[in-house]
């Protein structure tokens, strides 16, 4: 069952076409990796899935993105409800200048949860979900900016989990982190797929290979190839895919 899929998706930055006729679907409870060289459109595509591109002036999208079968670009869609369901984690850890607790509680509070007990419970379960609870449970009221980069990124994941999303979009979430923090996040991603559907943009092909079930290869705004990760890396169907993955490995 595909929870989210794109159909004939084109995206333009004013006159420049950044995505060309993308048809791609993501099955529930899977990890999908989007790979490709810089500027290939993988991040842009990721951002169409929760309409973060709306924030950029002059972006025009045609075609459809179906979330649970419903077009998210339809006029009656509440984009804030959509983003609650389709959460996002960014390249650079970006915790708010608040306490750890308030960072996690920010999303639930935004969506109207005020009950202290419910918030406490959400904060705990989200931090546990992001494998951060044990490290921070004694300093929830301290500023989130005091955490290390890797902890900050897991905090951002916990923050995204706190609004109970169905899909989690991750835009190169480990590119600003050291190898140890990176592997912690990778482990986390694998465990998260039991509950969530994850789409992750990565420039690191070993990472894609380690954690993803599906991989999609983008080049110059086109979706070149998509398939089961192992198959795509071991026997790519397209010449361009092969060039890219062997080029990097070789």
């Amino acid at each position, binding site marked *: 069952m595909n929870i989210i899929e794109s159909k004939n998706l084109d995206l333009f930055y004013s006159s420049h076409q950044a995505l060309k006729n993308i048809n791609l679907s993501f099955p529930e409870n899977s990890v999908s990796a989007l790979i490709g060289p810089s500027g290939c459109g993988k991040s842009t595509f990721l951002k169409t899935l*929760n309409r*973060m591109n709306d924030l950029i002036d002059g972006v025009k999208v045609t075609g459809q993105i179906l979330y649970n079968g419903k077009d998210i670009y339809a006029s009656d869609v509440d984009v*804030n409800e959509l983003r609650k369901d389709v959460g996002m984690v960014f390249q650079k850890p*970006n915790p*708010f200048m608040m306490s750890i607790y308030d960072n996690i509680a*920010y999303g639930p509070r935004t969506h109207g949860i005020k009950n202290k007990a419910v918030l406490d419970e959400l904060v705990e379960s989200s931090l546990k979900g992001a494998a951060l609870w044990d490290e921070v449970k004694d300093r929830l009221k301290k500023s989130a900016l005091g955490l290390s980069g890797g902890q900050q990124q897991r905090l951002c994941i916990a923050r*995204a989990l706190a609004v109970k999303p169905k899909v989690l979009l991750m835009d190169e979430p480990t590119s600003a982190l050291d190898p140890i923090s990176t592997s912690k996040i990778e482990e986390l991603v694998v465990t998260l797929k039991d509950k969530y559907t994850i789409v992750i943009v990565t420039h690191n092909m070993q990472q894609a290979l380690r954690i993803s079930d599906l991989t999609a290869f983008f080049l110059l705004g086109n979706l070149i190839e998509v398939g089961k990760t192992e198959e795509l890396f071991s026997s790519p169907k397209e010449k361009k895919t092969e060039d890219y993955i062997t080029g990097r490995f070789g």
Partner: protein
Amino acid sequence: MKERAIGIIFTLLGLVSVLFVLLITVYLIVSGVPAIGEIGFINFMFGKVWRSTGSDPQFGILPFILTTIWGTIGSLIIGLPIGFFSAVYLAKMAPKRIRDIFVVIIGVISGVPSVVYGLVGMLVLVPFVRTVFNLPDGASLFASIIVLAVMILPTVIKVSLTSLEAVPKDYEEASLALGATKIETYFRVSVPAARSGILTSVVLGIGRAIGEAMAVMMVAGNVANMPSIFKSVRYLTTAVAIEMSYSSGLQRQALFSIALVLFCFIMIINGILMVLRRENKDA
């Protein structure tokens, strides 16, 4: 040799501002302290009556101190919310064109000389206050509060605007990605992130309100009453300015003492500002 001499010259030029601060401080203390000694610190600071020219002169400046405090608080109550919300609008919601136009407008109203504010206040605001509230004279604490509120607006807007615009886009994106609306994001993420800058703007506004003399002198009535919203009042600044030209003896010295008190107020504000600036740099 020549290089050394030039280096020394520049060092001396650098020290000129230190010299100025020292000169001002020393002169204010030297000329302000004697009268306080003669009148008595308690009598001076907490005396409720200022009658500098009578046969039995009294020099109590409590009315001026309280007027300055109430005037400043009043102008903040009115000016701050307007300035704050305007800054949020300009920083986050306004189209670029409108933002630019307002930046120029705000530059202009912050550059308008205080006597011009005083003039308009005298001829428009004071009669207006008199008619609306049915007073014998509109020149009052209330009128001065309004003028001060207008005068601190540009300071509040300018400084808050700068710090709101400096909030990294990342923060806002994170909040939007959690399903918060843009408005929620601005007020719950951007504003807290810019809080030390916004606080700085408030302190600068306080400084401006405490230090303003001319505009206040033209609309406050300048009678040495204990402050009351529709009464004619005298601020610390105007107390100095109004009597200086015809003062002599102890009266004149007492005016210097008032200036010294005002200077202390301002130095406290400056101190707070410097702490805030340091925090800004650390953040």
